[in-house]
């Protein structure tokens, strides 16, 4: 499931064609580290020489202090942990809801013509919509509380879970199904013992994509309507021009997104080690 646009550089080839070059190519990780270092350095220089007003661009040191204060004292009545906790509760609430709805819906699309007929137009309508487009409607319908945010996040997660489930179901090997039937499996057993397990890798990929989409939606939804959460924290800080908190918040959001992706990949590897051996 790893997409790579670059081929690994082959040191042996390099040696064959350019015998003069004795050094090994610079590792990509080192290049990335250097890039981050340079960006941080430029940032530090820009603020040290006051090239930009500290209101717009606080120094890295200020941001670190802001982060520290966020952790121990907090901002707008809640510590960083509480804001992050509120956000994570929403996203996992939405994830559970969309899994409960999405997997059966995907199964229905993948296994039944009627199911596909009913659900396909709904999914195709929902999928390209930016979640913020229907957020106002959802707020009118279910109010400004937690329910509206969870609903919007769940709606943004649903299409990828439904589509990956149905794709996984449709990719089941015909021989695997025939084998089960010839070994005595009924229709239901074929579904639970063969179709579902072989769709799991695809479903997990869908969940990973959904988490990414959900996290994006979450922050956006909190910017618009919330009284806690990491997005709300940034929005409040921006209103008071507390730029160091804004930048801290952005960094936290990015780190959590990377962490969620990492955890999802770890779960994939643990749960379906056979996916790469089909």
């Amino acid at each position, binding site marked *: 499931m790893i997409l790579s646009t670059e081929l690994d550089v082959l040191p042996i080839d390099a040696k064959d064609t350019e015998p003069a070059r004795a050094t090994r190519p610079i590792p990509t990780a080192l290049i990335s580290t250097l890039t981050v270092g340079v960006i941080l350095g430029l940032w530090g220089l820009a603020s040290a020489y006051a090239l930009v007003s500290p209101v717009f661009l606080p120094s890295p040191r200020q941001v670190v202090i802001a982060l520290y204060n966020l952790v121990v004292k907090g901002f707008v009545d809640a510590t960083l942990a509480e804001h992050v906790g509120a956000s994570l509760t929403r996203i996992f609430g939405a994830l559970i809801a969309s899994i409960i709805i999405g997997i059966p819906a995907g199964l229905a699309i993948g296994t039944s013509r009627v199911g596909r007929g009913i659900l396909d137009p709904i999914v195709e309508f929902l999928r390209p919509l930016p979640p913020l487009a229907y957020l106002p409607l959802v707020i009118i319908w279910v109010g400004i509380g937690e329910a509206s945010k969870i609903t919007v996040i769940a709606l943004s997660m649903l299409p990828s879970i439904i589509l990956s489930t149905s794709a996984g179901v449709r990719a089941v090997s015909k*021989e695997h199904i*025939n084998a089960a039937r*010839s*070994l*005595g499996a009924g229709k239901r057993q074929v579904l639970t*013992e063969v179709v579902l397990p*072989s769709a*799991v890798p695809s479903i997990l990929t869908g969940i990973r994509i959904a988490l990414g989409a959900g996290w994006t939606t979450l922050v956006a939804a909190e910017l618009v309507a919330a009284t806690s959460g990491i997005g709300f924290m940034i929005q409040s800080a921006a209103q008071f021009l507390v730029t160091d908190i804004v930048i801290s918040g952005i960094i936290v959001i990015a780190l959590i997104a990377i962490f969620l992706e990492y955890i999802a990949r770890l779960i994939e590897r643990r749960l*379906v080690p056979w996916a790469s*051996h089909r």
Partner: protein
Amino acid sequence: MSILTFRNVSLTYPARTGRGGTGDKCVLDGINLQVASDELVAIIGRSGSGKTSLLNLAAGFLTPTSGTITVDGAPVTGPGADRAVVFQDDALYPWLDARDNIAFPLKLKGVPLAERRARADALLARVGLADAGDRRIWELSGGMRQRVGIARALAAEPRFLLLDEPLGALDALTRTRMQDFLLRIKAESGAGAVLITHSIEEALLLGTRVVVLAPNPGRLTAEIEAGFNAEILNGAAVADVKASPIFKRMHAGLTGLIHAGEEELAA
């Protein structure tokens, strides 16, 4: 003693309609065949002769256009554990280890976990893979996979084993070893067997009877009794059997029978 019977079985795919449509495609025509549980009937034919369709009919994956297929008088209406299939590319489940693959038919029957694991372990030992129970499918060699596939089919306690070129994908050395293995395991199980193959040698070595299927439409054109499998079961080496003059003579005869259909078409 169980008997699998094909009575006047034909299989026709309906014509494709519209412009460029073809006429009805007759895949199998008037097949009559009986397989008893003390037999291993080898069905041989070139590709396109409908031998896999014949097996799929026996398995219940396909329904005959006319005629009937019965097991001990009861008509076959769909797939069932009394006719377990072993596939050419094993069709094992990669999300299960070797033991749980073998225990799969028992799980379908609702056998409790501890018992089905124990029975799967016994089957693993029978197919010579006593230590491989925890191995993942992709960690097994082709020959080992087929052993697991055969053990899985046996776990269903079938009356008939339907073998769809189970050794077709194996290398020559493994294949010879597996032929001997297959004969013994089949004899021990007491199940009848239908073996689809395109190897004349394999058909002669393993079959109590060899049936020739000619293409366009698929029909049975010859049937010979082959006694070599009894010799092998009695301890004769496969290599010696293959080297015997009578084996060579029958091999040549069978080759002639298979090609007879071809000349008929050319004429």
